Structures are given as C-alpha cells and as structure tokens.
C-alpha cells in the first residue's frame, strides 16, 4: 500500500520546482523497506519555504544557505527526521519508518480501504515480509507472537498439521470459533476435516495451509464484530484479510521475483531421560514391561538379557533411543513471480512450490500453486480484475494417539530398549517388538498412514465503474472449491486392526459469493469539513459440502493398498449439505475535519438454514474515532498523536443446515455386547428398518448473537517515536444454537434450541517504538500483550455441564461448565481436605481414590505476549521474536506414561532411596498429619497418578525464542551492472529455544488439532526446530 502512495505522491510532488541556492547538498534517502531509494521524499530547509524532493531512485540535490542549515526530511509513513548540514555535501538518510503507522491505509471488511485514524475498532496489519521466509510453511504458525488478541496454537510438528486460531476468545458453544479467512476478497475455507476419530488418527491440515506465505503482501486482522460486521454472520469470530502480491505499484516496470529457501527440521522439546535403569518392574528385568523400573545397569547377573522374541542382548542404556527415532526433516521452497504494470493495469503470474519431508520417515507435505491475476482499466472507464489460483497440496502422516500407534508406543520405550538399532520387522514384514500385542513404532510408520491429496481452485472476478466522480458501482464474484481425496491405511498386522483396513474418502467443498457494492462519496456535505461515504451492498453466498467414503477391513494381499483388497465393508456412506445466505448491508462513514469519525453499519442476512418464515435477521454496529491531537491542535513533542476510539456491534450467526426437523436414519441396536444394523437378513429376505432420530429439531430456531463493545486508544509519543495502542473489549454471546439434553422418556436424547450465555473480556496492548537510532543503526521494538477472560455464564435450565461435541475419553471430557471458562477438562480429581492438601491413604502411603466429574484443567492461558526486536544496520536486518504464554493447562498422556514408566530423568534420581508422597493423613478427629509413609520410587512416581486423572495436568507456561531472521540486502551499487534489481540473502530459524517451568517437554501441543477442543496431548507428535537459508532476487 505504501508503494501506491509513494507513486501517487511522487507524481504530485515531482511537479513542483526545485530551487537552486549556494552550497549544494546531494544524497540518497533509503529505508529498510525501500533499500533501492524512496521517491518523493520532501526535503525542506528548516525555517524556510525552500525545499526539494527525491527522484525515483531516492536521490536529491538541494542548495543550502550555510552549514548551519537543517534539512527536514518528511514523508508519509516515515518519521520526520532533521539533519544538520555541517561540513557535509552528501547526506544519505536511512529513513526510519514511522512504526505507529499512523497514516497507514488499512484494508477493512469487504476490501474497503480506510485511513487507520478513522477506525473505531482494532485492526492489526502485518506485512508480507513478516511472514515469508521464516522457516515455516503454515501461515498461521508464522503469525504466532505477532498479534494481539489472537490465540494461535499449533498441533504438532507433523508436516501439514493443523493450527488452531481464535480471535478474542471463544464465542460459540458448538459453532466454529475459527475466524473467517478472506484471500483477495475470496471467502476462503480454512476447514479442518477430521475423517478419523481425533483421539486416534492422523492430523489433517487446516486448509489455509494451501496458501504459501511467500505470496502474501499483507495480512489484516479484523478482531471484533464491529470490524467484521460487513462480512456478516460468519465473521462473528473475527476475520483475517489476506492480500496477495500483485503487479500494482510497479510503475510500469516488469519485475521477475525469485525466492528460494532450504530449511531443516529437527525434533525438539523431548523430555530429559534417565539412563541408569532399564526395562522391568520392581527392580527386576521383565522383557515385556513398558517401564524402566528394572535393575540398575551394571548390576551383577544382568550383563545380558533375553528379549521377548528370544534374542540375547546386552543390558545397557540406549541414551538416544528416542531421539534417534527421528530423522532430519527438510523444507524446500521455490517461487517465481512475474509482475508488471501500474495501479490500473497490471498482471501477475506466480508459481510456488513447497516440499517438506517430516522428522519421521514416511511423512511429508507438498504444495504446488500457480496464480494468474490482473487488473485492467478499459477505455470506457470500466475496471475489470481477476485472479485464479490452483493449488495441489499433498500430505502423508502416520497415526498418532493412545495405544496402537507409533506415538502411542514411543512414550513406552524402556531405556534399555535398542529402538532403532535392531530390525523392526522380520523377513515377512511382521513387526518385531518387545510388546507382542503392539507394533514397533518404526513398523507403524511404514504401515499405518493417512494420505491426503487436495486439488483446489479459487479465484475472483470483479468489474467496477465510476458512474460519476462520487458514485461507484462494482460486482465481484468469488469462488473457492476443493476436493480432498484421502486414503487411510492400516496394513495387515496393525495392532488396532490386525486383519488390516483401508478407507478411501472423498471430501468436496465449494463456496460461491457474489457481491454487489455501490459506493457514494461526497465531501463538505451539510457543512464545511464533513465528508460522507455511503456503501450499499448485497451478498449472495452458497456453500456445498459432500463426503463419500468406503471403508473395508480384512485385507487379503499384503502391501496392496487398495480398497478392492478388503473382504468386509463396514462403513460406506455419503453425506452432503448445502446452505445459502443472502445479505444486504449498508455502511455510512462520516468524517469531520479528518479528526472525528463515525461509522454506522447494518446488515440483514437471510439464511436457508433458519425457519423459512423467520429466516432474516438484522444486526448493527457503530464505531467512532476521535483524533484528540488534531481536534485540539495539540502540538507537543511528548504527545504527538492521540486517538480515542469506541465501538459497539452485534453479529448474528445462523444455524448449520438441517437442524429444523427431526430426521429418520437407518436403524441399529446394541453395542459391543450384541448389535444389529439394518437392513438385516431374515429368512433370506433383506429387511430395511428406519429409526426416529434422537435429536429433536426445532422450527423455532433463531440466530445466535455475539455482541461486542470495545474502547481503545492509540497514542504517539515523543514525536511518534513510540506508539501505544490499548484496547479493552467485552463480548457477550447469547442465544447459542445448542443440542440440549432432554429426558430420554420423551423418546429423544437432545433438542436443538437457543440457549446459553458466555462472556469474554480482554485487554490488548501494543507498543511499538524505536529504541535506538544512531547513524545507520536502528533498533525497533514491538511488544504485544493480550489477556482474555472467558466465562460460561449459563447453559440451559437445569443444565450446568455439557460436553463439547467431538471425540473424548470416558472420564476426561472437554466441557462447557457453568461458571468456568470454555473448554475446561472434566475428569478425576484427587481428594483434598479443606485446606487443599492432598489426602493420603494411611494403609498404602498412596493417594485416596480420585473423585470423578471434577474440573481438572483449564486450557485457556492467563495472558500471552510477544516481543519483536528488529535491528537495522546498513544493509542488514535482524529480527528476533520472543513470545510467551503464561498459565493455562495442558493434559498430557505422554508425560504421565513416561513418568509412570520410570523413563524421565527425575525418576532416576535417588531411585534406591524411599520417598514420601506430598500430602496429609486424615487422623479422623479433624486433624491432619503430614504424610510420613515411605514408599519405593516406583510406587512414588506411579502413585502420583495414572492416565485420566488430575496428575496428567501440567502448567503450559512457556517462554520461547520463536523466530530469528537475518537478512542481507545487496546494495544497489553492486547490482548496477547485473540484471538484478535487488537481491537478498537471509537466514532464519524457528523454535530455537524454549523454557517451560511446569512441563518436561514443549507444552505447545494439541493433538486434536484446530477446533473447539484444546489442551490435550494424547500421544501426539513432538514439535520441531526449523532453520535454514533463503535467497530472493528480482530481475
């Protein structure tokens, strides 16, 4: 956007003449963003009216009266800078950008460009170079730590694994809480389709993964309903507006940009292990034990031991048996784009590939994309533009989850087990593993996987016309469609399905949008200084989904991964839905003397998913902004800029399709004791049977609403060297569309209805400033801080607790609980006395039995913050991002496994000495005595608690060196005789270091992937540390 401004301003300013005076000073003005020179910079001699402007290469020449003259360099978006001439005849300026971006043009809802100062709500903008070439192929991950009010949690280091994002908390009980994603005006699906049980399966991608970070020009985050109201129902969880690179702003040049990077990935975040004790239990060797409670290494009589499959091996530690299970991953990314044109006539063609091999064998993520786009202003004044992108994304991942999977086993590897040094299968391909009922993890990697192949096309077409200089009309059509073909293989011998199974799924999604927009702008209406812009719009939306699946078991031919290889077909089916929405919206924006702004918006949506006689709903928003410093003509070096803003908005959200009626489905009875599924074969006849559905539909369903209030301020201090942005928001979700439990004797199980109330409150703080500026060295710092409090105020009459739809373990339920934050885990809690001390069983020295049905963990963090440091020196730029997440819990199966199993380092310390569990013994007379019952180490560590209990809950607090990048841009003088316009080389690294005081590994994990269930580590894959090198040049 800055480039556009640059060129416009240049044209205006370049026409003004340049004076000639005594001494001539020449030089060149550059900046970190514009190392090739900034055109159109205004240079005046302080105290006079004479001045000059820079040319296209940023060069200037100015006559000054004396050495005492002071040159004042000013340009929109940069800090006005003064330089005393002195003896110099050449003054080169490395212009520091004005970090507060006070005059930045922001892309808001529906692509409307607004001056930042006019906005009555928080919008945060990230430039493309902050997310590209950061050793990270998933855009959402590369936004981590850079935004306020936004919670981004990756699920694991598996290639293509999904990432969860919530803006300003969770606002819907069961609807999607992921923000709306808009790419170049295209409503873009970021769905994560879990075709398998999320407790046991592989982690599919969130589909924003189909966008390569290298193609991005900017990312704008619309945080609240007020900002996103024009997008309607679907933006109640906020919106992320992504603009990809285009040929606009190239000033009729043709530019070929090439970028390329190689990154490596290594496993990290593994806990520390003990290496003194081997496989076994109660200090004795046992060759099928999952624990490392055997004798100490070197114990006489245990020089060698016999494995469960009959070989004799030395009894020794294999300190790296877990680490060596992982390989080095690789990410190779290449991109070429050709762009040309100016603001009105331009085109871009770009191609990008990303090829990733994961840190475990047989896992990969490959993405290939081609984009063609352009704009044209026809002679008759009609503007047309279009953009089409094709993406092919392929991923392959192994199975994760408790029990029979590589990652269900990797936490149960005894310290003396030579995991990677011994063959993992016999000559017939059968798994060889110490535990005969499970698979060797390496065997699982070879033979159990999910493959996904996505073909996706998205694009837009827009035509617009200026009917007069104040009236514009445009129509835009956007489409996004993809097919995801998945194959889910568990070969013969797999622990979960010993006879083998193959599933073949086809998922189809498509979305079409048509938007008519009429914009009228008038200045000085009614009174001098009052400008008004009125927007009228109409949106037509259709969304289709279909899934088709075949699932077969009992395979015949080994290694033949085709469903025709199955003998028994147990789950074939089709599911599809379609929904439509018709929206009409209006927005009136008023500006008074460029310091007082008021924006009134309203939208009426009509949804196909609501009862036909009552399917339209209206919701409004109002936002105001007041630039105090301009209104009161404050001229202060301390308070250079002050803006106050406030907004209130409501957004309605429709239901999912087909909730209005009660439906019938193919009948079935029973469970794993005995069951039938219709049609049944009786006496040679196939008898069909249908059952009344267990969910009661409601033809009275109304939309759910999110109402949000926000106040904030934006302040520029010390000549705008430091900018502060503060926001407070309060969001209330009501009328939630929810399946409430009903008495079973009504004949039904749940009833879809409108209930519930949930509140989010939060504070966001953003600080940006230049810490140091000396010569060609600049140190900029940006700090962001977010604190959000969520509370479920009310569910339904007589209902204080309800599970979040999804897969959960019995006894460990992600839940909605009245008076608690959304998504708390309900499970088994330890018994405590009134003082909160743990109660010990006086007979055993262990804890008393746990109590079921208690809230044991809250995955929501207390606060999150990120600190970005950027150092500029000559042609070098160094960025260092540190972020932290304070509080919040993670429930980890893996750590409990490894603690109970005696594998963690802490379990090896003083193992021979007896221990006492922390707690007290109830003396029966109201008195409690500190526990003094000694137990052996194995009893102690396993006594802390097993799976499905409070003892698996850890504090997820973490400090992290998230991202470091160093870029060197070749100075233009070196490039003058080459075909290159610009060239840079960069080094980057991610997840280089972390500190988690409450968790033995990296707590950023989320096995169930993007969605409403968070905070569970159910034997997922660990995270990775990425680092690499990238080059970029233009021709």
């Amino acid at each position, binding site marked *: 956007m800055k480039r556009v401004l640059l060129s416009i301003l240049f044209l205006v300013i370049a026409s003004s003449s340049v004076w000639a005076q005594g001494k001539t000073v020449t030089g060149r003005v550059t900046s970190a963003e514009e190392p090739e020179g900034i055109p159109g910079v205004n240079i005046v001699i302080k105290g006079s009216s004479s001045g000059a402007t820079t040319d296209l290469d940023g060069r200037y020449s100015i006559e000054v009266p004396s050495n005492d003259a002071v040159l004042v360099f000013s340009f929109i978006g940069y800090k006005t800078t003064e330089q005393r001439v002195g003896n110099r005849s050449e003054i080169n300026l490395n212009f520091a950008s004005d970090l507060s971006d006070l005059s930045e043009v922001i892309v808001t809802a529906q692509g409307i460009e607004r001056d930042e100062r006019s906005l009555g709500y928080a919008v945060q903008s990230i430039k493309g170079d902050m997310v590209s070439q950061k050793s990270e192929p998933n855009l959402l991950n590369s936004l981590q730590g850079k935004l306020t009010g936004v919670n981004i949690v990756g699920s694991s280091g598996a290639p293509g694994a999904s990432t969860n994002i919530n803006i300003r908390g969770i606002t819907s009980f069961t609807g999607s809480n992921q923000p709306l994603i808009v790419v170049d005006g295209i409503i873009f699906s970021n769905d994560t389709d879990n075709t398998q049980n999320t407790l046991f399966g592989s982690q599919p991608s969130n589909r924003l993964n189909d966008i390569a970070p290298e193609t991005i020009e900017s990312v704008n985050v619309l945080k609240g309903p007020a900002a996103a109201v024009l997008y309607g129902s679907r933006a109640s969880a906020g919106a992320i507006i992504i603009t990809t690179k285009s040929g606009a702003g190239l000033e009729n040049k043709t530019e070929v940009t090439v970028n390329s990077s190689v990154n490596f990935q290594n496993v990290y975040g593994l806990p520390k292990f003990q290496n003194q004790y081997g496989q076994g239990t109660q200090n004795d060797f046992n060759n099928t034990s999952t624990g490392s409670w055997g004798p100490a290494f070197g114990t006489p009589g245990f020089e060698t031991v016999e494995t469960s499959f009959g070989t004799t091996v030395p009894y020794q530690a294999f300190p790296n048996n877990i680490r060596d299970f992982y390989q080095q991953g690789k990410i190779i990314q290449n991109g070429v784009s050709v762009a040309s044109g100016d603001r009105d006539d331009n085109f871009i063609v770009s191609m990008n590939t990303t090829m990733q091999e994961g840190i475990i064998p047989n896992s990969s993520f490959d993405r290939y994309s081609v984009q063609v786009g352009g704009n044209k202003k026809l002679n*008759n004044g*009609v503007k047309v533009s279009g953009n089409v992108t094709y993406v092919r994304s392929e991923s392959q991942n192994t199975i994760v989850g408790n029990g029979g999977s590589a990652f269900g086993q990797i936490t149960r590897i005894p310290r003396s087990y030579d995991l990677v040094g011994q063959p993992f299968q016999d000559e017939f391909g059968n798994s060889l593993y110490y535990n005969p009922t499970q698979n060797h993890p390496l065997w699982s990697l070879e033979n159990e996987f999910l493959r996904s192949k996505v073909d996706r096309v998205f694009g837009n077409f827009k*035509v617009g*016309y200026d009917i007069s200089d104040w009236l514009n009309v445009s129509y835009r059509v956007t489409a996004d469609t993809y097919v995801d073909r998945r194959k889910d293989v568990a070969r013969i011998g797999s622990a979960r399905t010993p006879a083998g199974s193959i599933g073949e799924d086809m998922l189809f999604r498509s979305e079409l949008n048509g938007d*008519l927009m009429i914009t009228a702008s008038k200045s000085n209406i009614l009174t001098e200084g009052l400008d008004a812009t009125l927007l009228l719009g*109409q949106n*037509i939306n259709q969304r289709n989904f279909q899934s088709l699946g075949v699932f077969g078991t009992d395979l015949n031919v080994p290694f033949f991964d085709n469903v025709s290889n199955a003998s028994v077909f147990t789950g074939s089916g*089709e*599911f*599809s*839905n*379609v*929904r*439509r929405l*018709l929206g009409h919206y209006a927005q009136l924006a008023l500006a008074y003397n460029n310091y007082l702004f008021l924006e009134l918006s309203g939208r009426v949506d*009509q949804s*196909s*998913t609501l009862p*036909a006689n009552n*399917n339209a709903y209206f919701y409004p928003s109002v936002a105001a902004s007041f630039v105090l410093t301009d209104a009161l003509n404050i001229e202060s070096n301390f308070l250079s800029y002050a803006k106050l803003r406030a907004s209130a908005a409501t957004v309605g959200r429709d239901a999912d*399709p*087909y909730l209005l*009626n*009660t*439906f*019938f489905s193919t*009948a079935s*009875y*029973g469970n*794993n*004791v*005995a*069951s*039938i599924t*219709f049609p*049944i*074969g*009786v*006496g040679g*006849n196939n*008898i*069909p*049977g*249908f059952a*009344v*559905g*267990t969910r*009661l539909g*409601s033809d009275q369903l109304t939309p759910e609403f999110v109402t949000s209030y926000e106040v904030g301020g934006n302040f520029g201090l010390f000549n705008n060297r430091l900018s502060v942005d503060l926001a407070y928001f309060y969001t209330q979700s009501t009328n939630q569309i929810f399946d409430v*439990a*009903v*008495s*079973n*004797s*009504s*004949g*039904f*199980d749940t*009833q879809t209805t409108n209930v519930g109330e949930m509140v989010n409150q939060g504070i966001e703080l953003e600080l940006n400033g230049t810490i140091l500026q000396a010569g060609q060295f600049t140190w900029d710092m940006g700090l962001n801080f977010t604190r959000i409090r969520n509370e479920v105020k009310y569910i339904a009459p*007589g209902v204080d607790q309800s599970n979040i739809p999804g897969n959960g373990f019995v006894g460990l339920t992600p839940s909605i609980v009245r008076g608690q934050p959304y998504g708390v885990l309900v499970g088994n809690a330890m018994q405590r006395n009134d003082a909160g001390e743990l109660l010990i069983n006086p007979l055993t020295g262990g804890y008393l039995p746990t109590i079921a049905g208690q809230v044991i963990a809250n995955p929501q963090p207390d606060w999150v913050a990120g600190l970005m440091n950027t150092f500029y020196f000559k042609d070098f730029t160094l960025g260092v991002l540190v972020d932290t997440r304070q509080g919040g819990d993670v429930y980890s199966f893996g750590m409990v496994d490894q603690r109970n199993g005696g594998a963690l380092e802490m379990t090896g310390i003083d193992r021979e000495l007896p221990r006492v569990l922390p707690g007290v013994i109830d003396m029966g007379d109201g008195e409690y005595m500190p526990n003094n019952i000694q137990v052996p180490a194995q009893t102690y560590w396993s006594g802390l608690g097993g799976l499905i209990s409070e003892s698996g809950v850890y504090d997820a607090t973490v400090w992290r060196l998230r991202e470091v990048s160093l870029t060197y841009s070749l100075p233009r003088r070196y490039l003058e005789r080459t075909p290159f316009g610009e060239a840079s080389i960069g080094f980057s690294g991610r997840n280089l270091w972390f500190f988690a005081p409450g968790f033995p590994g990296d707590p950023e994990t989320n096995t169930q992937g993007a969605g409403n269930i968070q905070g569970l580590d159910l034997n997922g894959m660990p995270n990775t540390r990425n680092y690499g090198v990238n080059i970029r040049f233009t021709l």
Partner: protein
Amino acid sequence: MKVFNKILYGATFALLVSSCSEFMDINDNPNNPDAVTPELLLPTGLTGAAFANNNELNRFGSTVISVTAGAANSPSAYDVYDIDSDDFGNQWRFELYSGSLIAFEEMIRVSEEVDAKAYSGIGKIMKAYAFALTTDTWGDIPYSEALGGLGNTQPALDSQEDIYKGAEGIQSLFDLVREGIADLGEESSLMPGQDDIVYGGDLDQWRKAGYTLMLKMAITISYREPALATTIINEVLQDGELITSNVDDLNVRFGMAQGSYAPAHEWTNVSTFAGDLIISTRFVNLLQSKNDPRLPLFVTAPTGSYVTIDNGFAGQRPLPQTSWSRFSSYVTGNGAGPVRLVTNFQRAFNLAEAVVRLGVAGDANEYYQEGIRASMSLAGLSASEIDAYFAANADEVNLTGNVDDDMEKIITQKYIAWFGNGVEQWTDWRRTGFPTLAPHQNAGGVDPNQRPLRAQYISQEINRNPNFPNNIFSNVPVWWNE
C-alpha cells in the same frame, strides 16, 4: 457503458426476485428422510422390543434367576444382586424409549394418517408389550406423557397401578391392546408382509397374540388385583382367540449373518463378551433332578459333560472357555433366534394358574400338561418322547389340588419352559416366589438377602428429568408385587 449498467441491473434484479422463495428453499436434508412409511418402522420396533427382552435384561434376568451364572463383567455383578443406576441405561434409552417405543409411537401416528389399520393395530399391541416390560422392570414410569418429543421434554411418571388399570387421562395397557385388536379387524390401506418379521403379515395371528398378551398382563397383576385380572381373563376366554399352537408364538426372527444376529446368539457365541456368562450349576441340577429330557436340548456340553459354575462363585472359572455349557441353539438359533415374547406354553401355564388361583373355570391339570407338552415340543421332542416322559414322571406332570403345591409346580415348569427368557422368569418369580431359589454365594448389592425386585432408575434420567426420584433401590417391590 449503458450495456454494462443494464446487465448489472438485470442481474441484481434477477437475484433479488429469485431470492424470495426458491433460492432459500434448500434446507431439505439429503442425508436423512424426514418421514418414513409404516413398513420401515415395524421391523425397527419389533427388533427393539426383542432387544429389550433378549439383550442385557436377559443377561441380568437369566443370571439373577439362577439359570446362568456371571463369569465376568456386568453379569458377575448381577450374580451377586449388584445393580444400580448405571445399569440398563442403554436398555431404557436405546431399546425402549428411543428404540421400540418411539418407533411404534411413530408407526401408529403415520398409520392412522393413512388408515393403515393393520399397522396401527400391531403397533398398539406391541407398544403395550414394550410398556409392560418397562413398567414391570422399573415400576412407575413415564407413560401417558412419554414419547411426546418437543411437547414434553421432561415427562412426569405414571404409577404402575394407573398404567395397568387406567385413570383419568391415562389409557390402561389393556385398553391399548383392545384398541389394537379392534384396529386389526378394520379395513387397512396397507398390509404388512416381509416387514412383519413375526407373522409375515398374518393379522389373525396378531389378534391371537393380542389376546394372549392381555392374559399375560392380567396374570402379572393378579396378586394385587385378583378381581380385575379374573374379569379380563374371562373376557379373553370368552371372545378371544388365544395362541393355541406353538406356530402362533409371538417370535421375533433374526438372521444368521453378522449384523443380523439375535442378541443372545451374539453374546453367547460371537462377541468378545461371550466369556461373561456360563450356565448355572443350579439349573442343570434342577433339570437333572426332574429327569427332564429338555436339558441336552437347552444346554450345550461341548466336552460331553456339563461345565458350569454355581451362582456367585468367586473362584477360578473353568478353562478353556470352549468347554463351557451355554445356551443352545434352542435359544440362539445360530443367530436367527427367534426371540420368544409371547408363547403358547405361556398361555397354557397362565390359564392353569388362573384356574388354580383365581377360580377361573377350566381344568388346571389339563392346562398344566398342555404347557409342558408345548414346551417340550418346542424344544424338539417328539410326541412319543413326551408321552414317555409323562408316563415315567407322573408326579411331576400332575397337579395335586393343593394351591401352593400346584403353583410351585406350574411356575417351576413355566420357568423351565421360559429357558432363555430371563425377563419372564424373573417377573414370574417376583410375583409368585417360585421356583424356590437358594441365595447366591457372595451376594451383595443393596440388600444381600434380597434378589433384585426392580431395576433402579438410570442416572441419565435422574440428571435430566427432575420427576425421577433417586432414592428407590432395587430391593423395593413394584406395585403389583407389593
């Protein structure tokens, strides 16, 4: 430019107009139907009722009544009288209220709309059967307010007395059956066929089943309401055609392929829970003491001798499991069942009881012998084999004229005949105290000295519907047993 404007106006107008109706009218579910015809609901209702009788409640009933013994999992808890509110939730929810009962309710509703009287008639008879099973098991239950969907999401409970006898706003189960029988006599727009997996569409047999069900329900309440029971029994004897042959039995038939099995076959021979149940030593001893020729036909002996355990036995179970004595194909039918809900032998024993206890006119001994013969014939014995048994065991097959002795004989023979249907055996024992059963070893539960007299309300209903009391345990008799 004007062309462009016209196109734009045209397009917008077209969109606005079309949006009014058809554009939004796409919320019809392509994945599930919102209405089905009666013949698609009948098999669902029938198999649901069969599951309610033959699945978990049968594992419970057969065990608590000493026919089987619990070797593992839930049945080993049943064996020591240990049931609570976490038991039988699936039966209440999926087999009864959200299974057979709602299917019959919906079938009756749809049938009445299209005058398919055959279906509404069958539906009313079977709904009465399923409600009777529910109230006999749990006591007071939602009945008149139940199955109302949105109309009543927290139905109140009706007393068992009102359910059987009727009251203001509560149709008695007997009236429900009478209404069903009346429907069967009317012209019907639709006739059942293959979908009727009981009688293949023979309405005469359904009518007989209806009257025989009324007889059973009258006998069930006859200790508590002897006069009403007598009246009803006389009514069905007078104008009713009862089941008088084994081929008239109300049997729900299943199939011999995975996914179509009768429940007792699957949990006896197929599923991973087949190790839960073994035939009780007591049942084998009982039949051996009577020289009963049905024993080898009822109970398997894979090793040539009966491998059983005593009820409540806590020690090592016999190994291997393949040696265990189990329900034979008389019960399982190798998957096909049938699940016997109302039978000819039951009718005969009920009439024998009615003559002995209620003074209904008739020859009790004749009915008693008819019951034994019907059962033996059903078990596969030939007429000559039955005659031979009768000749050799005259004491066993003849009543004495002493009411108590005769009742013990009738119900003990009925108990043997009901082999494989623990629900009916348990109900008869609760009513009459027969057969005389010794306490199980290691008995516990709410009251170690009392076999369960009812099932406890399920915890999910206690959580969801405040009308359910949470303090009625399994040692409290139901109304007809008070």
